[in-house]
């Protein structure tokens, strides 16, 4: 029989070995007290964890936890439960935004607060973005008007966001630099806005859904972009 290693002894103690190997190792351990002692130490650690923390299982469960299984999930929880759809919509919107900005910014001159190099860098980062996360909703002054029209977007329809129509796209310059705002309308005429701007890479922000006064703010960030999707809570 091959000599044991600690990893295999751990698998033995944890019940991860098949019956044949387990029997082999048990027989071998019976003839090698020092290896047996190692196995006993491992067993002691497992048993010790049970002894130390076992009583935590017998504490009374707060009513609010049992109630959580009996009631309808909160609106915010429902929204989070459907996060994948939100991501699809958000991803679709961001792709549309990226394409629009890339196209519209080609040759576009702000002539006011944005320097061309800054715009070029922003557009490049937008086009390179492949995944999404976060939001920081802060737009400053209202400036560059890029587009204002109503048209169907096949990409959004294909991704399940059927009926979303782009109403307008704006470039805004604020304290944090250039940001983009896209305003969409769904079939019921409800408005959905997507804010995109560059962000500080050192500020980590997990995806977050905030519901406030009937409005949902879905925030995410990834790479150089910070995004906020704003919609009525009923969407």
């Amino acid at each position, binding site marked *: 029989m091959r000599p044991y290693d*600690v*990893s295999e002894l*751990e*698998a033995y103690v*944890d*019940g*991860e070995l098949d019956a044949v190997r387990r029997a082999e190792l048990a027989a071998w351990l019976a003839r090698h007290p020092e290896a047996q002692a190692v196995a006993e*130490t*491992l067993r002691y*650690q*497992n048993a*010790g*964890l*049970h*002894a*130390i*923390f*076992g*009583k*935590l*299982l*017998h*504490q009374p*469960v*707060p009513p*609010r*936890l*049992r109630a*959580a*299984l*009996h009631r309808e*999930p*909160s609106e915010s*929880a*429902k929204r*989070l*439960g*459907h996060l994948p759809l939100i991501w699809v919509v958000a991803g679709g919107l961001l792709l549309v935004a990226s394409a629009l900005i890339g196209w519209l910014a080609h040759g576009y001159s702000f002539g006011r607060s944005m320097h061309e190099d800054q715009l070029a860098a922003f557009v490049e980062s937008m086009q390179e973005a492949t995944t999404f996360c976060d939001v920081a909703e802060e737009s400053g002054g209202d400036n560059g008007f890029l587009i204002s029209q109503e048209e169907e977007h096949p990409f959004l329809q294909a991704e399940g966001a059927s009926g979303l129509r782009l109403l307008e796209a704006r470039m805004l310059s604020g304290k944090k630099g250039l940001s983009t705002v896209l305003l969409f309308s769904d079939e019921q005429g409800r408005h959905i806005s997507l804010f995109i701007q560059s962000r500080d890479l050192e500020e980590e922000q*997990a*995806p977050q859904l905030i519901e406030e006064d009937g409005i949902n703010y879905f925030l995410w960030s990834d790479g150089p972009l910070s995004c906020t999707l704003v919609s009525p809570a009923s969407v």
Partner: protein
Amino acid sequence: MSNAQQAIEAEIPYLRRYALLLLRDRDAADDLVQDTLERALLRLHTCNEQVRLRPWLFAILYNRFVSDYRKRVRENAVTEAGDLPETGVAAQEDRVALRELERALWQLPEDQRVALLLVGMEGMSYEEAASVLDVPVGTLRSRLSRGRRSLRLRLEGQSAEPRV
């Protein structure tokens, strides 16, 4: 209440224990468990008969812990979570030894500690524990080995690898 909800309800004590050992704060732990339960109900359709309920619930809980609750960890609230049992361990020396084990456990890096708790305390298979932590089985085993070695060295009074 459906059978699935009843099965989930039976897991609440285990979820609370794991949440408490992650956060070391009872209120925060119960918030995390409530969050986990609400999400589990919403995703129940993704949990088929081939999926063991406890690892599935633990995975939701751990994911929520990592994404939103880790910042609420109470680093110094060690003994609150792991008070020794008042009965069941008769010998005083055993109680002292367990106290030492508990202290050594809290000295471990989080990744090693959570691996040890899933396998050693919860009795999960390597595959289940790896799925909870969303890491390959090899990574789980490596964390487990390093954690156990550190525990042993600490209990023997030797210096273990520095806490990360």
